[in-house]
């Protein structure tokens, strides 16, 4: 008997109530799968189960906001803070909208809906785990749960070569990037002897710096930037994005542009801003911090420029929206760097909240835009070129006006959600007073100006071009109508009355993990 081994064992600390929202989503996914195997082809029912699961999870999440929940549980593996809560709401919103948007497409393409809804719920579960995980293991597992489900969703139109291509590219490049992320995690584990982010932050902060190999820490950080950079579509790791977004079924593209990107931002923030903080007086920590903030600032500039310039040259609407999503990742990175550079805990929490809010505004606008693209795309996504939108403005005014509104919000017109989001991330970055970050904000503003070209082009095409082919106005179904109403209200609400929500996102308490453990 080895008594020493027993002394080493830590007492498990299960706390089911903390991960109840995640569990509800996962159980809903299992129910959808089981239901589908007994009663196949019941698309409306499996969609309804998915929506109910997501709504229930959101309700439980809302009760946890401000409730008496420990900062960390499951032996420090699950964090409970504003970062987790705010991002989880974004994920649930995105998934629910995706279910509604897909109703049209699922009917049109005769998709095995049970599988599709189950995969969507499992992907949501993975995303929620990514934002809640306070341990590299949980973050990795969440990311893979999300990725594997999304690979399949991208290739769901099995008979279509474009969809196959999209899935294959996403799968090969995605697992390639995961390998880099994993290697980064291994090196960080090697440098600090722990996979728990709170412990890693503690080891870096210790005055005598017991981190064994500073070089490993740096290499690990760089590898993880590659892995996360791929998931958020940051240049130069964005090459896969346009092809995958174009080939994937349109509702899946909508999901990929808003959901997994936000999830990757959540764990990216948690690992880098909270897990590898700048600690005054510790040389290696300063060096690490300076390296990643500088590298990310430069990459954010490239991302904004590449995304906006390439979007101008697109003729396919989905491809244009793909490049636009690259540019938006760049804007969100501005807030991310603001969080990394923040001098006080409060400024950092506000910057984190600004990124979460930005992803919410992007999700609302994007879901609305993709709902219309899905409705107009017809079977096999044939009608996704700009010319297919020629002159529909006065023939289907409802669709055209709401699509115009979403384009203006993506551009960042004042009074819309996109404007509020941009203002918040830019101001949180400017708060750091760093020269490089200021330059980055200038680039971001120039990038937004460039983006006017392709967003306004959409509006010009719809209202001022002659239509040569016949136009059959698509029927707006209840589900798509609901998405449009929610998105239009959301765009104005987030643009005009978002103060309360922002405060909720950034209320002091986001830093509970680091404070509680010190």
């Amino acid at each position, binding site marked *: 008997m080895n008594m020493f081994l027993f002394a080493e064992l830590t007492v498990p600390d299960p706390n089911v109530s903390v991960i109840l929202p995640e569990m509800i989503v996962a159980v809903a996914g299992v129910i959808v799968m089981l239901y589908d195997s007994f009663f196949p082809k019941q698309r409306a029912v499996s969609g309804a189960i998915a929506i109910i699961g997501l709504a229930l999870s959101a309700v439980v999440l809302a009760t946890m906001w401000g409730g008496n929940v420990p900062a960390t549980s499951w032996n420090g593996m699950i964090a409970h803070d504003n970062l987790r809560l705010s991002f989880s709401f974004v994920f649930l919103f995105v998934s629910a909208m995706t279910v509604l948007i897909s109703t049209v497409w699922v009917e049109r393409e005769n998709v095995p809906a049970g599988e599709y809804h189950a995969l969507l719920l499992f992907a949501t579960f993975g995303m929620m785990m990514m934002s809640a995980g306070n341990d*590299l*293991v949980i973050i*990795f*597992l969440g990311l*893979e749960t999300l990725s*594997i489900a999304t*690979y*399949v969703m991208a*290739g769901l139109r*099995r*008979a*279509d*070569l*474009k969809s*196959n*291509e*999209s*899935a*294959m*590219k996403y*799968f*090969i490049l995605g*697992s*390639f990037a995961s*390998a880099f992320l*994993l*290697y980064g*995690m*291994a*090196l960080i*584990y*090697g440098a600090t*002897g*722990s*996979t728990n982010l709170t412990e890693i932050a503690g080891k870096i902060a210790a005055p005598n710096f017991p981190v064994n190999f500073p070089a490993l820490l740096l290499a690990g950080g760089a590898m993880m930037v590659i892995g996360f950079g791929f998931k958020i579509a940051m240049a130069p790791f964005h090459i896969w994005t*346009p*092809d995958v977004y*174009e*080939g994937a079924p349109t509702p899946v593209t909508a999901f990929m542009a808003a959901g997994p990107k936000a999830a990757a931002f959540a764990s990216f923030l948690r690992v880098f801003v909270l897990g590898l903080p700048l600690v005054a007086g510790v040389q290696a920590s300063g060096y690490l911090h300076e390296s990643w903030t500088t590298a990310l600032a430069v990459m954010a500039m490239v991302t904004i420029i590449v995304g906006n310039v*390439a979007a101008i*040259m*697109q003729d396919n609407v989905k*491809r244009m929206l793909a490049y636009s999503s690259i540019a938006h990742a760049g804007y969100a990175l501005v807030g991310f760097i603001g969080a990394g550079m923040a001098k006080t805990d409060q400024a950092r929490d506000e910057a984190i909240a600004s990124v979460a809010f930005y992803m919410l505004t992007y999700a609302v606008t994007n879901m609305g835009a993709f709902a219309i693209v899905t409705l107009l795309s017809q079977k096999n996504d044939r009608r996704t070129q700009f010319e297919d939108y020629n002159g529909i403005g006065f023939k289907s005014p409802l669709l055209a006006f709401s699509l115009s509104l979403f384009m203006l919000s993506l551009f960042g017109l004042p009074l819309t959600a996109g404007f509020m989001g941009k203002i918040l991330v830019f101001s949180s970055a400017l708060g750091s007073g760093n020269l490089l970050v200021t330059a980055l904000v200038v680039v971001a503003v120039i990038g937004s100006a460039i983006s006017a070209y392709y967003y306004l082009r959409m509006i010009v095409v719809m209202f001022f071009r002659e239509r040569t082919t016949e136009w059959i106005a698509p029927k707006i179904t209840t589900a798509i109508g609901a998405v449009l109403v929610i998105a239009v209200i959301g765009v104005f609400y987030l643009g005009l009355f978002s103060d309360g929500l922002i405060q909720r996102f950034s209320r002091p308490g986001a830093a509970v993990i680091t404070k509680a453990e010190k």
Partner: protein
Amino acid sequence: MEPNLASYLALSGILFTIGCVGVIFKRNAIGMFMCIELMLNAVNLTFVAFSRYYADTTGQLFVFMVMAVAACEAAVGLGIIISFFRNSQSVDVDDASLMKN
């Protein structure tokens, strides 16, 4: 002489690089996938080496998780490659070129 930590790290670094170069230069989807598996296993070696170095089991647990995930990835990935093959009669990634700028 018993190999030390540095030897294991060097070996895993070399394996990871071989896998990475393979993914970049290979054109066969299955071959690329095998190279990715090689990269994952190189990472596993790193985890185990550090786990032994620190006498800490976390690294070994991580390896189990990676293995499980790699198995899921293989199942899904081969399915995706097969569905591509059915429609294009090829597993060459250069044939996956319907979408271009």
